[in-house]
């Protein structure tokens, strides 16, 4: 929906295009939320790839290294990512 906005600041993982990679900027959530992502290596500064999303606000599948994880839509909204700026 908001995909096409040429954002400069961080966007929600749900707004990232499928197949695109981005750097994790911030994890907006409680200890448990951050803890579970941290255990999988998803911490601010690391690069993740969004593999796919589902219709009707279904889960988002992301890839970190060779690990693939499916997370709920609401959780994906709380992962803020920054896309690498294309080289001029």
């Amino acid at each position, binding site marked *: 929906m908001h995909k096409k906005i040429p954002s400069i600041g961080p966007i929600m993982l749900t707004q990232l295009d499928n197949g695109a990679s981005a750097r994790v900027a911030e994890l907006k959530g409680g200890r448990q939320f951050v803890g579970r992502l941290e*255990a*999988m*290596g998803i911490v601010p500064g*690391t690069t993740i790839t969004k*593999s*796919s999303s*589902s219709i009707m606000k*279904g889960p988002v599948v992301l890839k970190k*290294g060779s690990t693939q994880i499916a997370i709920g*839509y609401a959780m994906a909204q709380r992962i803020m990512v920054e896309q690498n700026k294309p080289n001029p």
Partner: protein
Amino acid sequence: MKKIALIGNPNVGKSLVFSRITGIAVVSANYVGTTVGVKIGRFKFHGDDYELFDSPGLYSLEAFSKADEAALKLIEDCDIIVNVVDATNLERNLNLTLQLIDKGKPLVVCLNFWDETKHKGISLDEKALDALLGVPVVPTSANKNEGITALVETLENARSGKRSPPDTDRWSRIGSIISAVQKMEHRHHTLLERLGDFTLHPVGGLITAILALFSTFFLVRLIGEGLVNHLCGPLFARLYDPFILSAVGHVPGAFIRDLLVGRTLDPLQSFGILTTGVYIALVLVFPYFFSFYLLFGFLEDFGYLPRLAVVLDTFFHRIGLHGESSIPVMLGLGCKVPALLATRVLISRREKILTMTLVMMSAPCLPQSAMIISLGLRYSVGTVITIFSILLGLSLFMNTLLNKVTKGDPAELFIELPSYRLPSPKLLLKKLRLRILDYLREVFPLIAVGVVIINILDFFKIIGFISNKVGGLITTVLGLPGDIASVMVLGFLRKDISIALLAPFNLSARQFIIASIFMVLYIPCIASLFTLIKELGAFSALKVVAAVLVCAVTASSVLHLGFLLWDGMGMR
């Protein structure tokens, strides 16, 4: 005796390593959370006795679920840790490894799935890893039984490794270790990886899910029916039955003879331990049990279940759950006990209770389903479909209701998707054999006890007494013969016999629908009841059981009333 604990991320093959070392067969599968409790086995090496513990998988030393807590406790209690690591996914696995090393216990790292690193274009320098971590590193391929002896031999050399200096950023240390020990070649996507991507695609996933479910049902029925009609049925009728009847003819004492083979020849009417009991267990249930677990085992080992969880997530959100609950529900199509245990990986108590209710209500367990199908098909296919649709509908209604009345936020899906793996036929058959043996061990004693109880009740005219007391109520409320009361007593022991015992009543199709729905829901079988109590505590377990019972009585009486009204309208 030294206590050795197998600790590692979920789905790295700990149970397989466990079963290779101890020779104890345990169920393993290609998804996170197959093992939810600690298992103990013993083995001898160089004359020393060791105790080996299998544990649920952990991503870090932080407990999120009940299954995590069990593994954390084991880490504290054991003498040596064998850290099982997925060699194809070293980076993520090292997070736990470094945390374990910081604990300071003697440790061995087991690089499992070593055989798969080649296909995936990964080359690992295990000597360099050994040096960087300061602990022995042993490559293994547990699925091929390679490296297991070397692993056991290395246990003597287990040592505490190099602790991270304080204030080091763990993930950056992992990054530097990975760049020192791992080289990745670029290579083309394999067919299985392409399939993996397709089954996650919004449309592709849905298509696969529908295809997978329908072909599974089709094949379960095809193989099951084939076995009933062409193998188990004829064997029973032509060989077993005549033999056992003539053999028991020599047994003195009419009462004993009746217990063993009953009074009539129809194996569904006689209620002899050796006739009806064997007929139910081996001819009516076993074929479906075999075909269901054969296909289910394949899906499990292939790694499909977590993908299905992703596809079903949106739907499960409507009943206050998320996709991960679909795994216990699928398991529940086979047997409720492992399904209820599988809810241990769920984090909140609320989603646990909701999932357990769904597990118990959405469909009967496999032996009961097999009986409902066998008896129901004597009426019509529609009768069977009606029963299963009503059960599914009721369970969804119940969960929607529970979701409304219980407080708390719906949890979110968080599940690792394993790579698809072609199942090893050997391991698949091993698992099938394990499940079949478990079934046979349980079914015969309980059926025997059930038949003895019903004969004793009959002998002392207790059935007549019970029927007199509550029979009228059953007839008025449910429209069923009063004598069914005795069957209800036995349903507690085993749910498949409770349906089988309906056969002599010559019920009408409608009565059979009502009776089946009531028998599936009214009370959990003894094994599931104890599992519920163990998992939730007596009070909550009884609340769940009571809620389901109320639902059973209401639904069956409403159904009876509906049928009556329908007839009344037809009369006019």
